[in-house]
Each structure stands twice: as C-alpha cells, then as structure tokens.
C-alpha cells in the first residue's frame, strides 16, 4: 500500500470509546472509483466510524450505482438505518463528478443527494465532504471531517508547527524551529495561525498566513508576549503582555497595531478566549489567590468569576454555541479536561488522564481536542462533550502537543 509509506509522519487515530446509540449506516462502494489514487468509500467509512456516532455496517465491495435504488430489504436486513450510494463519472475539463444519495432504509426515502466536482487527487477531500453531508443529515450537527487541526510536534531539538486534516492525514509543516512554539490559534476564516514562538529567546506573537508562509509580528513588546486569541470577526487578537508589569490582557489589530489594554488586575491575567458571539472574553486569573476562570464583557465592564471549585482551573475555551466552557482543572494532583454548563455552573470532568492541557472545541461543539501524556510522551486526544466518545491521535516517536481545531471550511 502506498499509503503506508507516508503514514509514519501522520497522526494515527484510534477510538477508545463510542457513543451510546450509534447510528448504523451502510456506505456502498462507490461506482467508478477504481481509477482514483485511493477510494472515496474508505474515506467516508473511516470518517463516520471514527466519529464514534456511527457503526458502519458491512456491505462488501460490490459497487452500487447512484442511478439505481438500493435493495432496501437487503440493507435493512444487515441492520443499517441509512445507506449511502455514489458514482464517480467523468466531467468536462478532465475533472470528475461524484454523485451520491443517502437513503432512509426503513422509510425507503431519499434523505438527500449532491454532486461534487473534483480532480482525481482530491478524492480524500471529496470523501470528507461526503462524510460531512451524511453526518449532518443523520445527526443534525455540522460535520467536521473537512476541517484541519494544528499542533506542535517536538523531536530532538526541533519543533514543528504542523497542520493536518481532521483525520490526521496530509500533515504539512508550517513552521520548523529549534526554539519552542506554543499556543497556535486559527483565524476564524482558517487562513492564518497566530502563535507564540521563542525564536527570539523570548515569547513573541506572530500571525502566519498558511498558504504563503508569510508572517508578521503581532506583538513583540518589551517583556513577554503570549496567549493569542482571535476575535470572532478576525480583526483583533487578544494577547497577554508584560510590558506594563505582570501578565495582563490587551488587544492588538492582527497586523500588530493599535495595542489596547482590556483589563487590569494586581495579579496574573492570561489565556484569553472570545465567546463565539463576540460578547465575552474568558480568561484565567489568580486575582483571587489561586488560578480561576473569569470573564469580562468584550466591550469592557465588570469582571465576573466563573469557576469556584478547586484551586486550579485554567485555559477556558467557550463552546461554539456559548452554553459551556471546556477548561483544565486540577483534581487531586491530576490535570483533567472538564466542561462547565454556564447556566447551571455544573462541572463535569471528561477524562481519566492526569496531564491534560490545551482543550479546543471542534467547530460543531461535539468533540474537544486536547493534549495529554501517555507513557511519558505527548499525544493528542479527543473526547466528546458528553465524555462518552474518546479518541487518541499520536505520531510515532514524537511528542505532540498544543492542538487547535480549525474552523469549518468556508
């Protein structure tokens, strides 16, 4: 298999937990995909299975055409509630068209159909788009199979900021450095990453355009510059600066101009994160004696304390729907990812590991990606917001850390 040759540098994803009620779905082999460098069918099946929300019903390798109705009795007999069929056909300009239809096997009705144009090399991206379609039709949630993730890989004396597809494939290096790189943050349109690099022997915030590799300094004031967070409109970065004393919250324009202080305390304020509606900035502060989570209206105003239980609650990350925050709590000496329902202030610890860091919501809010440690080595893991589905993403012989889940493609 050609794929196995490149897989060494890829993130390998294993599932260690699944949803309580997985939807049984059958994905028929796509007709006419044999000419592609790889199959669309396997991409769709893999995405759906790894999500933990589906059980992929075995349907064999016999292709089913999109033009014929599937044998509902047969597919139903295999236990599938839904079946996807598709065909790859030539289109003009040397391109290909992938037509597919999703059926409810019980009602024997079509749930949706779509056609996508692609080149043969785009079969994986097309497979992710199709999996997104199936996911949304069957769960009502946006699929995130076409998104990308950023993370930092540490090998001996070398740090690489990498970008991979959400399935861990197609990893590419955006920045390679001998000095540490931390806190990557995706711009809302997915075209740029802000991050902290120590290449100048101190933390400096950069904004890096992924397609061109061009970057600019967003914050390099006297002292430390860290913890970048994008405003939802992509115009501002919240950053933490020490130019006026202890670590405090500021905003700058993405080009580094227009620095403005947004809060002040006599202690540490750090790890800002905007709520998706742009109304709040959540952050960590030790103003009350121990590190706890607070929020401040983005337009300015009074600071409100959010976390109260325990002596170490850090790295607040609001969910896309604004109803919960993910954060890291220290619980009997273990650092674990937890979620808090903001209405009830109820906290649920989601993991049983002890070195969790850097939680990051998937853009549909269903999963939380984070860094943890297994056997002394940094790995990435993901857990569903209800704690049931668990995945681990690792790279062979390397430390992986600082994950950030990118936005939905536009």
């Amino acid at each position, binding site marked *: 298999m050609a794929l196995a040759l490149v897989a060494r540098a890829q993130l390998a994803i294993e599932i260690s937990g699944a949803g309580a009620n997985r939807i049984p779905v059958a994905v028929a082999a796509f007709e006419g995909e044999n000419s592609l460098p790889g199959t669309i069918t396997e991409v769709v099946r893999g995405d759906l299975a790894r999500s933990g929300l589906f059980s992929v019903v075995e349907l064999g390798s016999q292709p089913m055409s999109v033009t014929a109705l599937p044998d509902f009795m047969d597919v139903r007999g295999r236990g599938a509630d839904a079946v996807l069929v598709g065909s790859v056909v030539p289109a003009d300009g040397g391109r290909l068209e992938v037509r597919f239809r999703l059926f409810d096997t019980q009602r024997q009705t079509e749930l949706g159909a779509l056609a996508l144009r692609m080149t043969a*090399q785009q079969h994986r991206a097309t497979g992710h788009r199709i999996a997104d379609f199936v996911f949304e039709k069957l769960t009502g949630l946006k699929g995130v199979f076409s998104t990308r993730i950023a993370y930092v890989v540490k090998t001996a004396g070398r740090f690489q900021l990498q970008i991979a597809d959400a399935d861990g494939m197609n990893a590419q290096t955006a920045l390679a450095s001998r000095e540490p790189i931390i806190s990557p943050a995706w711009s809302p349109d997915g075209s740029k990453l802000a991050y902290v690099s*120590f290449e100048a022997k101190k933390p400096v915030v950069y904004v890096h355009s992924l*397609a061109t590799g061009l970057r600019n300094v967003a914050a390099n004031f006297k*002292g430390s510059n860290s913890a970048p967070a994008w405003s939802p409109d992509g115009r501002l970065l919240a950053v933490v600066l020490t130019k006026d004393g202890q670590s405090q919250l500021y905003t700058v324009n993405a080009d580094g101009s227009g620095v403005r202080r947004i809060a002040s305390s006599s202690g540490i304020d750090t*790890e800002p994160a905007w709520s998706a509606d742009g109304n709040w900035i959540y952050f960590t502060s030790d103003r009350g004696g121990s590190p706890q989570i607070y929020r401040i209206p983005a337009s300015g105003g009074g600071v409100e304390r959010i976390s109260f239980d325990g002596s170490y609650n850090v790295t607040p990350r609001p969910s896309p729907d604004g109803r919960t925050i993910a954060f890291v709590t220290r619980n009997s000496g273990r650092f674990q990812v937890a979620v808090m329902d903001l209405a009830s202030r109820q906290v649920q610890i989601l993991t049983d590991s002890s070195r969790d860091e850097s939680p990051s919501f998937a853009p549909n809010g269903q999963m939380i990606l984070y860094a943890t440690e297994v056997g002394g080595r940094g790995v990435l893991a993901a857990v569903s917001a209800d704690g049931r589905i668990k995945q681990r993403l690792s790279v062979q012989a390397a430390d992986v850390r600082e994950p950030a889940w990118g936005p939905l493609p536009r």
Partner: protein
Amino acid sequence: MRHHLVVPALLLALLAGCSSTPMSGSDQTGASVEDRSSGTVQTPGVQTVTPGQGLGDAGIAALKDPNNILSKRSVLFDYDSFTIRDEFKPLIQAHARFLQANPSMKMLVQGNTDERGSREYNIALGQKRSDAVKKALQLLGAPEAQIESVSLGEEKPRCVEASEACWAQNRRGDMLYSGEF
C-alpha cells in the same frame, strides 16, 4: 579593568547581530516545502518557514570565567515561590554591579517554571520569577533600562525527568547578556 577591554568586541557582536535577528517574516527565506495542496476542494497549501538561528557567542572573559561569580547566571526558586533565596543575593549583587559599570550592556532575564500545569499560565508564573530577579538587580543599583525580564514558562527545561529534583532545577531565572540571546 578587564571589563572595559571586552565591551567594544561585544558591541560589535551586538550590532552585527541586530541585522540578523529574525523579528519579522519579511526577512525569512521560507524553506521550500512540498506543496501537496493540489488545488483540492478545501485544503490550501502550507509553506514551511525556518527561522534564522540566534547570535554567535560574544566572548566576554569575566562573564565566561568559571572562577568569576559573573559566570553563574541562574537563580533557583522554591515550589510556587517567586522570592529570591538569600543564597543568591551575592550573585545578584555581582551582576547588578556589572550592569552599573557597563552601561552599554543589556541583560535578558528569562524566568522558567517546572512542567506542571498550563503552558500559558506557566509563562505568567515564569514572568513573576524574572520580574523578581530584575527587581532585585534594580534594588542593588542596576539601571532598569538595561534589563528586560521575559518568561520561557515550562518550554526550556534544564532537566527533563518528572521528579522533584529535576523540577527544582527548572524553577529558575537565567541572566543573559547582550550577544547571548
């Protein structure tokens, strides 16, 4: 006064260094990288950037002489503490005097923490350590303008085992002079 002899050499190194310090992306020659984007539906390409390396050594004899207290650069801290222990006061005093005597010298104080907890929160804690070192230097007469205090958080551990002995070495402030950062 051997200090005075070595300063000009250091200044040269500093000036030479300024032009090559990577401060913005514009002077990066982005190393070529495979463009695997192939114009796919939703996967724009990613260019690799490799930052330039730091400055070379600028030899200042007194700062490098192992028999001179100025060659010692680290101040260690207790767990969850940002107070300078008495044993480090002579060291800080020596560096404060050196800075006073060499007004063209700049110092970068890098604060460090052990590996436990949030990386960004540890940046803030490391800053408290470098600020403590800077403040102590100032109290002993070092001019504020010569010193920049920054934090490396948990990112540059001196010791990488998960043990208290190791963590103790990582809770420190390091004093670097012009040409060394």
